């Protein structure tokens, strides 16, 4: 493994378009459910238990066996009832794949895979392990909306990063759990859903003016 390679893959400055997405936070800010760092804490803990766990397991599974990518992609479709979230995930997968192809010899896995599948394929090409991939996925699932929170709410960036530091052990735990289950059949992989994120994404997609794509 290469620690520097893992850091490259997890870096928010990777030109993969992730900064354009709030992972559902913008809709919840607008609904008045997230106003403070404390609210963001609740949002991110929920995200870790649901979307981050699913993303990390699917990214680790794709990294472990790139030949499973098509099945994993269908598995994410079945776990993503919101068409707006499916579009957002595929747009991010496509952008990530484009960046990744410039960096490593990434396997051919289709043009617009779900983001976790693309992440797993990149990680495999970069020589990373499923466990490392799971950490990158879980980390990205909370740092993305945390950054969006600073922009949407003008929260104190120091306080937001202090929150991320407090969540780091839980992020590691979720990644470990995800990697442990990544060899399971697709139907048995984590499927934890978040009703408000599905509902919020559908409403958000109809807004005429918004800061983030999702």
């Amino acid at each position, binding site marked *: 493994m290469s620690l520097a390679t893992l850091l490259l893959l997890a870096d928010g400055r990777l030109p993969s378009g992730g900064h354009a997405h709030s992972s559902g936070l913008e809709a*919840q800010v607008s609904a008045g459910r997230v106003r403070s760092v404390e609210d963001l804490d*609740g949002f991110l*803990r929920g995200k*870790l238990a*649901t979307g981050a766990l699913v993303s990390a397991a699917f990214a680790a599974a794709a990294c472990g066996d790139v030949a499973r990518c098509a099945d994993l992609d269908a598995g994410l479709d*079945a776990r993503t009832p919101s*068409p707006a979230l499916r579009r957002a995930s595929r747009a991010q997968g496509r952008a990530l794949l484009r960046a990744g192809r410039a960096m490593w010899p990434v396997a051919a896995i289709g043009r617009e895979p779900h983001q976790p599948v693309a992440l797993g394929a990149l990680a495999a090409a970069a020589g990373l392990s499923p466990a490392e991939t799971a950490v990158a996925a879980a980390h990205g699932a909370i740092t993305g909306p945390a950054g969006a929170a600073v922009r949407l709410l003008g929260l104190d960036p120091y306080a937001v990063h202090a929150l991320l530091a407090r969540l780091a052990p839980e992020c590691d735990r979720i990644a470990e759990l995800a990697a442990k289950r990544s060899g399971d059949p697709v*139907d048995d992989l984590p*499927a934890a859903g978040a009703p*408000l994120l599905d509902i919020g994404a559908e409403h958000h997609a109809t807004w005429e003016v918004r800061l983030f794509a999702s």
Partner: protein
Amino acid sequence: MRAEARVAAESDGRGGTRLTTLRGQSPLLLRRTGPRASAGVTVHLVGGAAGPLRGDELRLEIEVGPGARLELLSVAAQLALPGRPAPASRLTITATVAAGGTLRWLPEPLIAAAGCDHVAITRVTVETGGSLLWRDDLVCGRHGEDSGDFVADTLVRYGGSTLYRHELAVGPRAAGWSGPAILGGARAVGTVVTAGPESMVPGAAGPDAAVMPLAGPGMLATATGADIRHVRAALDPFCAGHPTARRPGAPVAA
């Protein structure tokens, strides 16, 4: 307590449906209800005992054959209770719907009382050309009470592929469940999954609800609310309008 119940419906060959199996054990008792003359058969689930309580292992099997129409309702809400120290109570529902068959599952809500530890495992397999409407409503705790631990683990397959795979965990052990990513301040949540012929209109269905076309041939309507009345107001219209609700001679719901 361990209990098993099974209902199997098949076409009677004359445009109607007959039950070939209808048996249950307390607390899963099944009773045929509704008019004999209709094309479909209605069965009510009757709670024959309190619970589910911790340690309970309950199984319900539903089989709908080609051309048969079955609607399953329940007479009262299911109340998951703590009971003695024991492993989580578990209700496993396995349903199959053959081509041309229709199944409507429209039970009263599950209430996760404080201290309960309950898991509901749902596995539904619909053949191509079968029709499904599957409703699940959840209330997190009785009035003024915290929620108990509850996990819904749902898998719906249609035409040999997984159409909908979802888990929802609430209660003290579920991190962030009452936070703004999962349920926010809501204490009730409901879902309607349809597979096959559809009638739901995609889009927003109120501020805390949405109707979503799935990636495969089906739809999901989800609603959250401060109490079950909000959820019912958002979801009931979708249940009334589904094609499986229509019976020959009966007016088609708007």
